[in-house]
């Protein structure tokens, strides 16, 4: 069972390049020299980054070609605020290091039915589009990319794509005073076009609004949200009432996995929050439950009397389960 649930990749850092003052590009190969799993354009991996005794799980889009699985590439922008996983990537990770990562998953695939694809991106948001354009260009699909950068010193990735795809790549903010205007871009496109946006949330909102103003349907507007956290999150502890055992749930494991590791049993089947098998009664709670399942109804959730241990977590000082 463990293999399928914790299945992770061991990636060796082959090369680190600084591509802008804030962005490093990392090239990985499989630590054991084998092939990496294939993926589709728009996929991401979660990299497990050791940081001051803890582990950060940051999602990064794969920007290398989906047709070459001898290596993966990601780009990491250093962000000084927040949980600071990117700082560790920039400061601590060296060529030759081995990092754990999840198998690629795709929450931002390209449409297979589009007549034309328009990509709008800001800064490091261009990374998933690298792989998507590779896929589309191999298939001979029609596309264009509009990329906004904060100045010429931040434009290296844009230049690289311009080199590959020529006029189909339009750069904004590269020292020539141009500004990306999504309303204008979307206005002149033929029916059957699909739009993809990746960048700061302000930009995503702006593109969605512009598309709606032009009368686009949601099925033709694509954007990525890294909301699929699976069953991981902040640590908490849980008390099993029947044995009195106190189990610590670490950030990397689900409540169910922690209970199993401690030698206790809970019923389960799907381990994905859908089947209802592991539904467990909450006897005491001081805090809030982070319900992540598809099983409990909205009213069940509000009562906080039930939890699905295979995916859900809690932010709490006390959680006692009838188990």
């Amino acid at each position: 069972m463990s293999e399928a649930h914790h299945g992770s990749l061991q990636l060796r850092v082959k090369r680190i390049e600084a591509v802008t003052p804030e962005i490093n590009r990392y090239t990985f190969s499989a630590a054991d020299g084998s092939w990496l799993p294939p993926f589709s354009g728009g996929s991401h991996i979660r990299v497990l980054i050791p940081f001051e005794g803890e582990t950060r799980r940051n999602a990064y889009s794969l920007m290398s070609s989906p047709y070459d699985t001898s290596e993966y590439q990601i780009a990491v922008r250093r962000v000084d605020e927040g949980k600071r996983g990117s700082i560790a990537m920039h400061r601590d990770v060296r060529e030759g290091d081995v990092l754990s990562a999840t198998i690629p998953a795709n929450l931002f695939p390209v449409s297979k039915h589009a007549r034309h694809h328009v990509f709008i991106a800001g800064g490091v948001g261009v990374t998933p589009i690298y792989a998507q354009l590779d896929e589309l260009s191999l298939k001979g699909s029609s596309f264009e990319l509009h990329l906004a950068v904060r100045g010429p010193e931040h434009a290296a990735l844009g230049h690289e794509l311009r080199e590959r795809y020529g006029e189909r790549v339009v750069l904004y903010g590269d020292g020539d005073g141009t500004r990306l205007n999504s309303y204008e871009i979307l206005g002149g496109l033929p029916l059957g076009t699909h739009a993809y946006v990746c960048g700061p949330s302000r930009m995503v909102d702006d593109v969605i609004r512009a598309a709606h103003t032009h009368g686009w349907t949601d099925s033709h507007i694509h954007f990525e949200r890294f909301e699929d956290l699976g069953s991981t999150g902040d640590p908490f502890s849980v008390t099993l009432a029947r044995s009195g055992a106190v189990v610590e749930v670490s950030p990397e494991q689900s409540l169910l996995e922690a209970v199993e590791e401690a030698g206790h049993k809970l019923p389960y089947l799907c381990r994905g929050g859908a089947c209802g098998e592991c539904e467990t009664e909450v006897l005491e709670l001081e805090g809030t439950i982070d319900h992540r399942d598809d099983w409990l109804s909205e009213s069940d959730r509000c009562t906080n009397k039930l939890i699905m241990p295979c995916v859900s977590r809690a932010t709490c000082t006390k959680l006692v389960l009838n188990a």
Partner: protein
Amino acid sequence: MTAVSNPAGFTPDETYTPGGEYRFRNSREAVRRLPFPFPDDEYMYSMNLEPHVSAGTGALRAAFDVDEHYVSECAHRDQMLREMPGVHYLALPHMMEAQWDLLELIFESYNRDFPEHFTLTRNGNEWRWQNRLLGIDDSFTFGDPETLPMDPMEYATRQAQGEFVVLEERDNTLVIGAGMTTQRADYSLQFNLGMNFSEFHGPVPKLDKMGILDRALKFLLRMKPGHPVRRVNWSLTVHPRLETSVETLPDWAPDRARVTAENAGDMVYLRIELQPLHRLPRSNAIVFPVRTYLVSLAELVEHAPGWAKRVHRALASLDPELADYKGFHRYHGAAVEWLSRHDDGAPLATGYPWIEGGIQPGSGSPR
């Protein structure tokens, strides 16, 4: 594709058709390795999805199971495709990438799980595929359909047991984009092609009310490559007939009226469907395989009496609406009556047989 004469342990001359006089039987080992689908005395339609990880030494050991009927089943597929071209295998044009994904998944799995029968040798995109059970040794370029004699999906699934439906993810639902379905249980691939998840589940009674469909879809959309899940399903069928599609209904439906409490043991087959779903890596499609196992009620009683008792109880307490949907209401009573003679009412373990403490086949008298 010429089958080699008689590879050890395989029964290459079985038939699944009236023309071939339904020449099919299971060995004792084949029965006792089945993915038996009844964990409880009462059958409930449920979201019985679980991670598809190797379990035990039977049908759940491999990612895609191969058993003693492999050679005969591949021959049956070939026969069905020749008899009704364009009915059993269909693929929409934009599914080509998923076709290659599926070929890779099946061949890699067979190569890993049954190295004595299959060898896949990869040198970049130049692949060599050896299938010793069917006497195939082909080289082709992965990704180039010109280098294969037919579509990659047809090529791979002609050499695989079970049927395969490929679902494309579009607009937050799953749409049927391709299928190899020579073993259809009462539906039409042509009719269902292009339908989405709620549309092709339309005929299943009660599902909607129970909210199962929505939950199942959300779960499937979150599926990731490398993390397959499985479920088991079942039905009953008359004769060991694999192909019971809507298109050939006049050929097989009348047999349902010939079952009696006297002949049900030999005429009625439990049809077990093992469904291991995989997210495909390049196309982001999901493949929904249906690996069908046939076992007669008499074979169950002889080789797995514990399971026969369980089938009796599950059928006896079955909701008539489900029996109707599954297409056996006409002989439901006859099957229950025949089975009742082989059930002493002793308590049985609960849980699937591959789960610790689950129901085991029981010790029947060996032949």
